[in-house]
């Protein structure tokens, strides 16, 4: 049941990303898994796609769809890719699982003109409540892991991300927040968003 909920969330992510990627663009998906998102982008947005993942055998699905695939470890950087090679680099639900998130973000914006970053907001009020009243590490329907088996080794909030962008001269072009199962684009007060949103999804670019 938990996993169904997570599946639905990732479905929601994908739908939103589909609307954010421009028609016919060159797209690189970092941590693409079986290239499912790229496949959809090809069908619906006619993009030219490349997928990167650490698990080479997962990429086979993408090969069969005519995608270019590259087995690589994001934590080692992506030095094989030249600057500005893509219109759009997607980093969805991956930032919180890498060891070197700053390297990955830098590489994303070096290789692509725009980055699409999506991550779970660890400052959402239900997680805060659990931590504050329950005295236990954050866990929710969207983050159903125990402290010892979570892949999420980088715990960040929406405010943390905004701070990072401000300090590193990254401009947020579009922002979408998943609040109560719905994508909200109205520019709410950031503390409110940080309290309410399960997921933050941003289109970013270098200033």
């Amino acid at each position, binding site marked *: 049941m938990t996993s169904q909920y997570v599946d639905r969330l990732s479905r929601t992510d994908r739908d939103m990303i589909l609307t954010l990627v421009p028609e016919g663009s060159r797209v690189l998906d970092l941590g693409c898994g079986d290239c499912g998102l790229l496949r959809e982008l090809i069908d619906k947005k006619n993009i*030219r796609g490349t997928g990167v993942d650490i698990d*080479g*055998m997962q*990429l*086979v*699905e*993408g*090969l*069969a*769809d*005519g*995608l*270019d*695939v*590259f*087995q*690589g470890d994001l934590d080692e950087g992506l*030095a*094989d*890719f*030249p600057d500005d*090679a893509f219109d759009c680099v997607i980093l969805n639900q991956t930032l919180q699982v890498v060891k070197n998130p700053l390297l990955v973000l830098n590489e994303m914006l070096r290789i692509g003109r725009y980055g699409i970053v999506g991550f779970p907001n660890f400052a959402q009020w239900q997680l805060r409540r659990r931590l504050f009243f329950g005295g236990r590490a954050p866990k929710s329907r969207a983050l159903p892991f125990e402290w010892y088996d979570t892949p999420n080794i980088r715990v960040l909030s929406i405010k943390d991300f905004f701070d990072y962008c401000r300090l590193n001269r990254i401009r947020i072009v579009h922002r979408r927040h998943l609040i109560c199962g719905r994508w909200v684009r109205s520019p709410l007060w950031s503390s409110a968003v940080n309290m309410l949103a399960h997921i933050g999804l941003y289109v970013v670019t270098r200033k």
Partner: protein
Amino acid sequence: MDRNSVGRVTPATFTFGDGDDPLTLESGHTLGPVDIVYETYGEPNADRSNAILICHALSGDHHAAGVHDVHDRYTGWWDGMIGPGKGFDTRRYWVICSNIIGGCKGSTGPASINAETGRPYGLDFPMVTIGDMVTAQKKLVDHLGISRLYCVAGGSMGGFQVLEWSLRYPQMVRSAISIASAARLSTQAIAFNAVGRSAITRDPEWQGGRYNGNSPGPEKGLAIARMVGHITYLSELLLDAKFGRRLQSANRLRYNFSNEFAIESYLEYKGSAFTKRFDANSYLYITKAMDYFDIPRSYGPLKEAFARARARYLFVSYSTDWLFPTAQTREMVRALLSNGKSVSFIDIDSPYGHDAFLVEEEKLTRIIAGFLEGVGKGAAS
């Protein structure tokens, strides 16, 4: 017989370069007439656009799949990859494998009869390069009425030919699969080849390369060359797991120079088995061709070299391959990426070292079948 085998196959020979029109080699010498022995599996489609050329490695030949006779104990060298429903699916593709020139399995090589003298070429055989092998294959491909190959694929030295094809005849190669290969041999790999050649040329039976006919030839030297080669094809990990420090027969040390360790007798066996099926002069010529292969030297720095490429590329490397290390594959992937070309790269986690491309068939099957499927769909082609 395996239900998914291509079954019984008969090699064919194509001859060109007769009389006034010999093959001009990179060295400036000419060679003719030239025989090329090849096999085909599957059927061509109406416009012959489903042809896949398989390029073999140092000790391989044209017999890539199936058997020559129903009683054959062994199948072709890549039988696990080529056949109905296999990685190179012969229900869809017309697969061709030809023997390289310079080899000893039927295509013109140093053991062939020199038309001018009526005797085997021996060391009068001109030096052939990977480029020359590819030029000869091109004649065969033209002869077979193929204007563009759906794919050229090969591992190790076969990968050299794949890369050469894609740069020498870019319009003719729709996709290219390079497995456990490189843009040029590493110094270390040349060094091992040099040891192998030295073992052959220092065997008194080599007789300056004129051993053909009357004597068995430099079998000892060739066996040693193969033993050295074999070590380079395997990983340290695999040798440890397979042989360790195990003794061949007794548990007691014998304190003499017999083959006591299991690895010793294994190498000895591999070496002497090789002499039954390979010609020492061919070994010299082919390893030299490998040493000479150098994309930057022929086509300029990798980034410039691959600017001319038109194929969709797939590069596969193996995590424990130290003869053709992953880093050498990535060099080429980087060059293609920096040119904005279509390229895919997968590094297979395998304990088998360089030999993995002949051993790890299950993973390779999925990768290649997927890639070939995608080539048909890709917008880039």
